[in-house]
């Protein structure tokens, strides 16, 4: 590029170094043999072994995964419904309140969301545990899902649905056979977003959980409050690796799909007739 100068190259290098170096250091030190996290004492995988022998961590991980799967799935259903209400339902009484309730949790500080849900659960005498965390996570992540899905629905060509109706579909069939398959990528990314938000959440889970359920972030937080812990480094490395593999695979798949599509379109133009 004409305007790509040494200045731009430097900002990119420094910028990405800033974004990635801390995680790289974290990964390196997870293989440190020494318990003193800052003194390099040779390569070792002992922290990984210890991590997998620590039943509390394994339990917390299992709780976290269950919460994330349940809450993101319910949130995807509710969020997709909310998105189609926002984009499609037109005017109805209470619409302003509805869209307000969709957007407010996105900017609401987590401490307030957590506090208010805890007060509700105490108020109605609900036992706190996995179930209440699922309720809490579903509530805020359905808002993220509905934002993702509604931006896709807003650009959705309505004549596709009309064509389905015209060809004899009931409105529900039209949604299931035409709309859903086409907006599926947005719904899937909404689910993934909800899933990561749930995996990641410390504050809301801390408020809404009870003694019976400890999630991984709560466990990590209490472990690192007092300082760096090599086990947590190992755990972090595993989590970073999962995300990196997942995101890179996903982007390769989309890229390949885009390339195939572009090639098909060119072929179609050439082979007119």
């Amino acid at each position, binding site marked *: 590029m004409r305007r790509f100068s040494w200045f731009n190259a430097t900002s990119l290098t420094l910028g990405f170094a800033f974004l990635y170096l801390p995680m790289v250091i974290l990964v390196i030190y997870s293989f440190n043999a020494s318990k003193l996290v800052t003194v390099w004492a040779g390569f070792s995988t002992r922290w990984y072994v210890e991590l997998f022998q620590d039943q509390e961590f394994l339990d917390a991980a299992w709780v976290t995964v269950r919460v994330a799967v349940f809450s993101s799935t319910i949130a995807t259903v509710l969020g997709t419904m909310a998105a189609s209400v926002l984009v499609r339902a037109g005017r109805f009484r209470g619409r302003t309140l509805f869209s307000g309730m969709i957007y407010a949790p996105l900017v609401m500080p987590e401490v307030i969301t957590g506090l208010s849900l805890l007060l509700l659960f105490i108020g109605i005498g609900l036992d706190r545990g996995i179930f209440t965390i699922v309720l809490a996570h579903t509530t805020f992540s359905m808002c993220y899902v509905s934002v993702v899905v509604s931006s896709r629905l807003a650009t959705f*060509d309505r*004549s*596709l649905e*009309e*064509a*389905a*109706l*015209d*060809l*004899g*579909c*009931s409105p529900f*069939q039209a949604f299931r*056979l*035409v709309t859903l*398959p*086409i907006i599926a990528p947005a719904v899937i990314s909404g689910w993934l977003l909800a899933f990561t938000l749930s995996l990641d959440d410390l504050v809301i889970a801390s408020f809404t959980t009870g003694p019976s359920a400890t999630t991984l972030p709560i466990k990590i937080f209490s472990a690192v409050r007092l300082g760096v812990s090599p086990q947590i480094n190992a755990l972090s490395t595993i989590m970073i690796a999962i995300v990196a593999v997942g995101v890179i695979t996903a982007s390769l798949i989309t890229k390949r799909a885009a390339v195939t*599509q572009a090639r*098909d*379109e060119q*072929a*179609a*133009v050439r*082979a*007119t*007739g």
Partner: protein
Amino acid sequence: MSQTVFAPWENPEEKPLIEFRNVTKRFGSFTAIDDLSLDIYAREFFALLGPSGCGKTTMMRMLAGFENATEGQILLSGQNIGPIPPNRRAVNMMFQSYALFPHLSVWENIAFGLKRESKDKEAISARVEEMLRLTRLTKFAKRKPHQISGGQRQRVALARSLAKAPKLLLLDEPLGALDRKLREETQFELMDIQEKTGTTFVIVTHDQEEAMTVASRVAVMDEGKLIQVATPDVIYEAPNSVYVADFIGDVNLIEGRGTTEGERIRLDWAEGQPPIWATPRGPVDTDRALTFAIRPEKVSIAKDKPEDRRNLLEGEVIDIAYLGNISTYHVKIAGGQIIKAQTANTRRLANRDITWEDRVWLSFTETSGVLLEH
């Protein structure tokens, strides 16, 4: 000698397939369709023509069931279709955007409507194959919509909407997305398919040439009202209003005051100029201001004054548009008005004898133009 002309609208015995009865459609305070009545007959290729926003698309969407009439009724084969949802109507639509399902193959797109009403796989398959043959798409059955060209997509959309053998097929600007050459080819293809299948077609278009080419009758619309409903030749040769004359093709309009003299009308259009004589096709109210409308190709142009013509206008050539097969001369006549005259270029350009700034004579017969009331 009697080959029966297809003209069910002239037969009072014939029952119309579609009847619009005093239909009004409002969107909030905006009136899209204003107290409109119209009959369309079976096997017609009917064109709704007008500028954007004239209400033609609204009429089509009311037929498909995506909009409901605010007042009045729409009957299909004598039955009020108002309460019937779009998926229960024996009406199919070909969308302007084609609305092909991107996640389904050509074959599955065409089979989509059939699968909704029948479980018989054999019958569906046979019908899809038939449609693929009709639209010459057999080779592309397995492709996805993004893997075929624009013209092929158009044919898939047509095949999909015809597959259920609807009583009525609606086509919303079906050729708008195609380039000019492909559009002309496809117009004839459409007419051919309409004739083969015997389906009633209602087409919405803003392209007057397209409407004239394909339609058995054309309805010219403006601001939610029908201005004229007639066969293409009548619309062109005998427009009923300045609006229609101006909308369809090129036209010269000369305003003036008329007086009846026997069978003819004398139109005085400018001080000190010879009047224009016209033979009207029906009674004309001479108390009102009149406009004489004449097509450029019906105006002859000559350097020497023709002696045998009754209507003569003298002027100066100010512009010549050379279009290859024809040339259009822009002639300024007394009073400053520009009249267009068209001649076929049967001779080579170099031999043309009329050029810029020449004094010329324009002439036309008494029956070649029409008188329109305001």
